[in-house]
């Protein structure tokens, strides 16, 4: 037995002696790995460049400032939803009801502020209330979601699927299935104004993503999202108040959806009863293409942004290329599937 003890000691020394060599090698692979990890974050950049070149070949208009701003503006509302969904996905939840909030939040504001006579408006409140109401409805929806998901421990997918249907139904109910027009000035402002030569909604979208990148990458709160999504027990053990973080994420997501709805209504100067219908598929597709895992704990805000940007650039190229509008939907779906397959290949791991 004493023999075996010395043997252990000798191999022990041997290994500490040997670790120096091993260490340097692992450090160099570490560097390569980090470079690779950053690449993963930038994985869609080559694709974006390729699409830009293709777009330019299809139509010389493509790379002109007007067209680029046009792309950014059409995607700005849905990009805000992608931002919201990204946070929710990182904590390993899902929120399908975002797309209904896009319609309902400005819908309720319009309902209360649009004067009687124009559609189903009630004209109960002055127009100045419309923006606060929109945002308040967003918060309220988020609180209901969070209550079901966190407080009562229900499955987020089913809860928000139910909410999606309920909220859409409420909007149809209050609008009588019609579109609200003659929105108050304050509701139109964000969707129509230009700041420094770019639409305010583009600025807002870019600023929100910048904030998202900083919060998720450089704050204790942001990192706790990844910890919760990655291993909720470990997060609790590290002293993170997981429930509180989840509440904040879910409520913020709905608030952002309401903001997205506000931008959309402002740009279109109306609230259709089907506003936001079908958005959620694009939102999920953009997030997943952008490297966000549906399993939680993985992906960056920047990746999500490149995901939605890529999708809208492709759409724009198709439109410029003269693809008949009736076929855009089919092509869109196909592109999403192709993009998912490509990101599966570059990501190397199965998505689930």
């Amino acid at each position: 037995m004493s023999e075996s003890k010395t043997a252990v000691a000798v191999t022990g020394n041997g290994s500490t002696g040997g670790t120096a060599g091993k260490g340097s090698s692992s450090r160099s692979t570490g560097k390569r790995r980090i470079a690779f990890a950053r690449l993963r974050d930038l994985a869609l950049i080559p694709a974006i460049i390729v699409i830009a070149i293709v777009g330019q070949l299809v139509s010389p208009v493509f790379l002109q400032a007007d067209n680029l701003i046009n792309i950014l503006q059409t995607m700005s509302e849905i990009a805000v939803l992608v931002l919201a969904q990204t946070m929710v996905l990182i904590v390993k939840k899902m929120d399908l009801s975002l797309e209904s909030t896009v319609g309902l939040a400005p819908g309720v504001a319009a309902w209360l502020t649009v004067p009687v006579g124009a559609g189903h408006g009630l004209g109960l409140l002055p127009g100045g209330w419309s923006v606060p109401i929109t945002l308040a409805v967003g918060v309220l929806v988020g609180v209901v979601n969070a209550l079901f998901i966190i407080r009562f421990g229900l499955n987020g997918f089913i809860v928000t699927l139910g909410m999606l249907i309920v909220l859409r139904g409420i909007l149809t109910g209050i609008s009588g299935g019609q579109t609200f027009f003659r929105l108050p000035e304050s509701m139109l402002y964000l969707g129509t104004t230009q700041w420094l030569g770019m639409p305010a909604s583009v600025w807002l979208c870019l600023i929100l993503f910048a904030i998202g990148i900083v919060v998720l990458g450089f704050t204790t709160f942001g990192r706790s999202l990844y910890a919760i999504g990655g291993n909720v027990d470990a997060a609790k053990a590290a002293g993170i108040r997981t429930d509180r973080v989840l509440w904040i994420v879910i409520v913020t997501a709905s608030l952002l959806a309401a903001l997205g709805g506000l931008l959309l209504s402002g740009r279109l100067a109306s609230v259709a009863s089907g506003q936001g219908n079908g958005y959620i598929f694009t939102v999920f597709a953009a997030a997943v293409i952008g490297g966000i895992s549906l399993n939680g704990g993985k992906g960056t805000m920047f990746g999500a942004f490149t995901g939605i940007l890529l999708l809208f650039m492709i759409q724009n190229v198709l439109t410029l290329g003269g693809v008949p509008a009736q076929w855009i939907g089919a092509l869109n779906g196909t592109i999403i599937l192709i993009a998912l397959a490509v990101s599966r290949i570059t990501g190397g791991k199965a998505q689930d």
Partner: protein
Amino acid sequence: MVTAAPVAEATGITKRFGSTVALHDASIRIEAGQTHALVGRNGAGKSTLVSILTGLQAPDEGEVSFGGEPAPRLADRDTWRQRVACVYQKSTIIPELTVAENLFLNRHDHGPGGLISWKAVRDKARDLLETWSVDVDVRTPARELDVEQRQFVEIARALSFGARFIILDEPTAQLDAAAINRLFARITDLQQQGVTFLFISHHLQEIYEICDTVTVFRDARHILTAPVDDLPRTELVAAMTGEAAAEAVSRRRGPSAHAAKVLNVAGLSLPGVYDDVSFTVRAGEIVGLAGAASSGRIEIAETVVGLRTATGGTVEIAGARPRPGSVPAALAAGVGFVPQDRHHQGYVPDMSIADNGTLTIPDRLGRAGFIDGRRRDHFARSMIDKLAIKTPGPQLPVSGLSGGNQQKVVTARALANDPKLLVLINPTAGVDVRSKEFLLGKVEQIAESGTGVLIASDELDDLRLCDRVLVVFQGRLVAEIPGGWHDHQLVAAMEGMNLDV
């Protein structure tokens, strides 16, 4: 000799879960600077003691103290973390985050402007790992660490909270020999720097290599604590098994030497799990496959029934060679099978006893894929009678039964197709004593009727009825023990220890 207060001490600990007593008036005292081993067979109460010592559960009775001071409140996680840490077999690391971030999760360094300074976090992590000479790049995503590195990182994290008492829960189970040596070197190092370890292992040889003191638990009680050097191996094993050295009486005659082989395993290999395994089971014979949890015995049994595919070697069942890796093929060849974990693979909890019991034999219940409910219930009733399942009727969901009766349903299913070979993995795990006796008696009966039986278990009672026991250690068959063995003889073989040394 009065020394300083022990690093950790638990006295008079009793913990019950419902009607089972997990710990009964148990005590342990861990002196500073020691490496203390905690051993005991499954169910001895080790994991309950660990969760009480780490503040995850409160004892029903008894007290825990650290360095002479009473333990903090359960909710006070921070204080617990400064006293004690446990490195579990299951990782508590977040795979998608880097090593640095895992080390300083939720206590990042903030730079100017309140934002996290990743450089400061990385530097601090690097310092920490250097202090404890852990050679891992702090920028590596944690998912890329191997088991050994992960353990070192978790140990370093524990130390960074100020804990100088660390529990290692079977740290060597997933390591190869070289890594085990490095781990031991590390433990010795840290011990010299004043860290105390509580070392839980099923591998008794290791305890003699690195531990100073050993505590044995058995049946929820503290049996002994002694310096390792003063405790001969035979006595250690005897303490673990209880002094049940009585001759096991073989109640039945073995199979005739001319009985046909119902199972012939030749040169079966699965890299990293088991290697070059060959054995046979004759009709009417009961063969045990013994070994510790990670020895590979379960995987060997699962390969026989088609749940796993071996990379080399053959499995021949009653003269036929079913397609490897196919459960239907194995069933068709005449295998009945009780899987390792009944909750996981054994039954569908919300389906009825009748449905569960007949899952493997739908073709006998009706034609063209339709199921004749009356015939199914008839089958189920005969099962309920045969195995004495306590239930109001065949329509009760299995989830409504007690553990013992659930296991009977799973066994009934294994028997439903009148197998030529019955493979049982941990057949009496989590089953009360009476159901256990009943089930084992049933197994003997089935063997009498000419079925070959293979029992993969580490439960001595399961193995006692075997005509012979094959011992698996680290993926290899290392011994064949004929019936009538002594407990300590088998346990020593399972723990990879040679009593003759």
